């Protein structure tokens, strides 16, 4: 049973050419699953003129379905609009399991709903944290509850994220697995020689927005520069808060000590990281934080705010954590600077290689897939009863949505029977390439 090969459809609004934690996760997970002998197909929406079917490294097939994103890279929620094309892809690719990513991807929610209607097993990965107080979160949580009411298994990227997801959606905790992100340690190697001299460079790479704590940086940087005359900052990233940082730089005349690089393309992140000694993360909320992994893999000592899943990411001796408060952050940086002589980037890198590996992530995800496939098949009525428990009004609404989806699906079956849809022949030998080289992310 353990060697059962799956045919997996990964679905999310977020995929290459966009960059971020989710995109990385899907790409590396797919590559490793291909290596394990599974078939993986990715579905996302069209990016600019990138529409249709593309192949990526290792024969990873990507469907860019011709739906335009309308806000923050999300497709317009239409509930049923994507059913015909998703149904065709599912049948054409002879998919056995659907894996959706990210709670605010509308395409993911819609596809999971259609897949459940058509009787597929579905797995959902949640990559983010949400509060419970504001109106946006309340609505998002209801949508998540709808999707998770009927998934076979769910995955979260950290234990904090699991707690959050269980609270938000009310799924039983034993259905939720914790499988963290990983880092491609071959891509983030430390420099052969550490930047020398008495100067200490602190690197910040993040989008300069409120949630990433750009305002904390504005308070912390002048204080640190004042305390340590040999410290220099390198800030990579762009965003609405960039103006505030530049104002701060001018107000304290730190132009020669704070370098602002603007947006850093992902392929250049390593070269920025290896120019520094300490990596500073000031996020106010974070489910996992891949940036810390990348920095640690490059041999940098991390100073971070203690928020969300961050304390779970690194062993205590590899990172200095602080409260999200300027005074405490400065203390943490002071501690990090005193620890710095004891840090050997090469040793750090070797440790990271043992701690995080995408192949390990893929193997653990494989177990979740096996579990999902063992879940019993359920009739529409059994599934509707699950939706009914979601709330007095929402439950009935969810049931109605599912019933219409089912009818729509029956109609499509009459109009275009599954037997009439061509199946794609499997191209053998794609995944026979040797070596661990899955670096060519942007070759396509």
């Amino acid at each position, binding site marked *: 049973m353990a060697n059962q090969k799956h045919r997996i459809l990964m679905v999310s609004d977020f995929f290459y050419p966009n960059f971020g934690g989710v995109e990385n996760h899907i790409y590396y997970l797919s590559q490793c699953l291909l290596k394990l002998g599974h078939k993986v197909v990715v579905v996302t929406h069209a990016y600019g003129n990138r529409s249709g079917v593309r192949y990526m490294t290792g024969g990873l097939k990507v469907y860019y379905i011709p739906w335009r994103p309308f806000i923050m890279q999300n497709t317009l929620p239409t509930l049923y609009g994507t059913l015909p094309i998703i149904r065709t892809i599912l049948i054409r690719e002879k998919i056995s399991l659907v894996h959706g990513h990210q709670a605010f991807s509308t395409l993911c929610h819609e596809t999971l709903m259609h897949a459940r209607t058509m009787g597929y097993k579905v797995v959902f990965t949640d990559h983010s944290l949400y509060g419970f107080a504001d109106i946006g979160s309340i609505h998002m949580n209801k949508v998540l509850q709808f999707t998770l009411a009927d998934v076979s298994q769910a995955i979260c990227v950290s234990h904090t994220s699991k707690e*959050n997801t269980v609270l938000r959606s009310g799924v039983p905790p034993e*259905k*939720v*697995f*914790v499988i*963290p992100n990983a880092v491609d340690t071959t891509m983030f190697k430390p420099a052969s020689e550490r930047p020398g001299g008495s100067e200490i460079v602190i690197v910040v790479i993040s989008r300069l927005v409120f949630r990433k704590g750009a305002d904390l940086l504005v308070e912390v940087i002048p204080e640190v520069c004042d305390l340590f005359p040999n410290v220099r900052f390198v800030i990579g990233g762009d965003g609405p808060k960039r103006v*505030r940082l530049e104002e701060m730089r001018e107000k304290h005349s730190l132009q020669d000590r704070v370098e602002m690089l603007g947006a850093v393309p992902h392929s250049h992140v390593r070269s920025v990281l290896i120019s520094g000694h300490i990596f500073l993360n000031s996020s106010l*909320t974070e489910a996992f934080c891949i940036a810390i992994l990348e920095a640690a893999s490059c041999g940098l000592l991390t100073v971070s705010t203690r*928020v969300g*899943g961050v304390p779970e990411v690194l062993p205590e001796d590899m990172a200095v954590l602080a409260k999200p408060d300027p005074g405490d952050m400065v203390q943490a940086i002071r501690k990090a600077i005193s620890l710095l002589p004891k840090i050997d980037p090469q040793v750090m890198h070797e440790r990271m290689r043992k701690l995080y590996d995408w192949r390990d992530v893929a193997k653990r995800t494989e177990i979740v897939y096996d579990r999902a496939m063992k879940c019993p098949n359920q009739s529409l009525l059994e599934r509707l009863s699950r939706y009914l428990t979601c709330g007095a009004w929402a439950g009935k609404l969810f049931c109605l949505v599912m019933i219409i989806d089912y009818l729509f699906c029956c109609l499509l079956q009459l109009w275009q029977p599954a037997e009439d849809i061509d199946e794609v022949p499997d191209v053998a030998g794609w995944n026979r390439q040797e070596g661990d080289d899955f670096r060519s992310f942007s070759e396509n």
Partner: protein
Amino acid sequence: MDGGISETRPKWRKVAYGGMQPGFDDNHTDDLFLEDMVMNANVVKSELLKVMQDSVSISQYLCIVTLVGLVWTYTLQSNLDENSLLLLDATLLGLGFLVLLLTEEMLSLNQLTYYILNIAFFATGLYVLAPIYQTLTRSISSDSIWAVTVSLIILHLFLHDYSGSTVRASGALKVPNLTSFVSLNASIVASVFVASRLPSRLHVYAVMLFSLQVFLFAPFVTYCIKKYSSRLHLMVSFVLMAATLALLYRLHPQLFVLFLGLLVFVSVVCPYWLIRIQEYKFEINGPWDEAKLCFNITD
């Protein structure tokens, strides 16, 4: 499971690194699960008396708007002539300034001349525009005007910012939001509509000045009183309530009953209701919340 195995078994740790923890599945739910969750940490138990006291601001403003409505009605019925209206305007203006002088310790001579100059401009502008207001809605039937006026006043009351004032003192911290501007504009349009039904220019001018004075500055003045002393605030409110009820009784006993019911609803029933539904309040906090910054961001 016997004791020997569980002793040799390594302890589960809440960490994400190092791959799958030996002896535990990825869906292992430990006793530590949700240990950092805090429920109802910031819920403030409110007291009935305190809520009732706060609701007085609402009743007070309801009275002020009702008084404006009464003045409109009396003017339209020709019970109030233009001279007494102008006298009323001047009295109100004087009273308002007196209150400001007594409550605002910051008011300097400079600021006072600034206010007076502004009001002079304002009054002159209104006088020039009065003929236009008078003929503005001549082609529209009176019924439509009354209907629109009533809906605008209701809109005004719904969106009004009862906690502060739209016209603010210089240096006040709170920035008024969009709804309070919509509310203010609704009241001004309503006054224009009412004024356009009046017989003479001077009438229009007097009524417009009166309505604008009240809608623009009454919240500001009451805000100043409230800030100065809550006891004075309560006293002023009760005087206003009594006056409104008396005048309404003279106009129509049914209206009196209706308004009394409204006041009781606002200052007794609603606070009680709020206290009752407090127990359904359920707040969850935990490590997943966005961290709050402990300093002010000055953009």
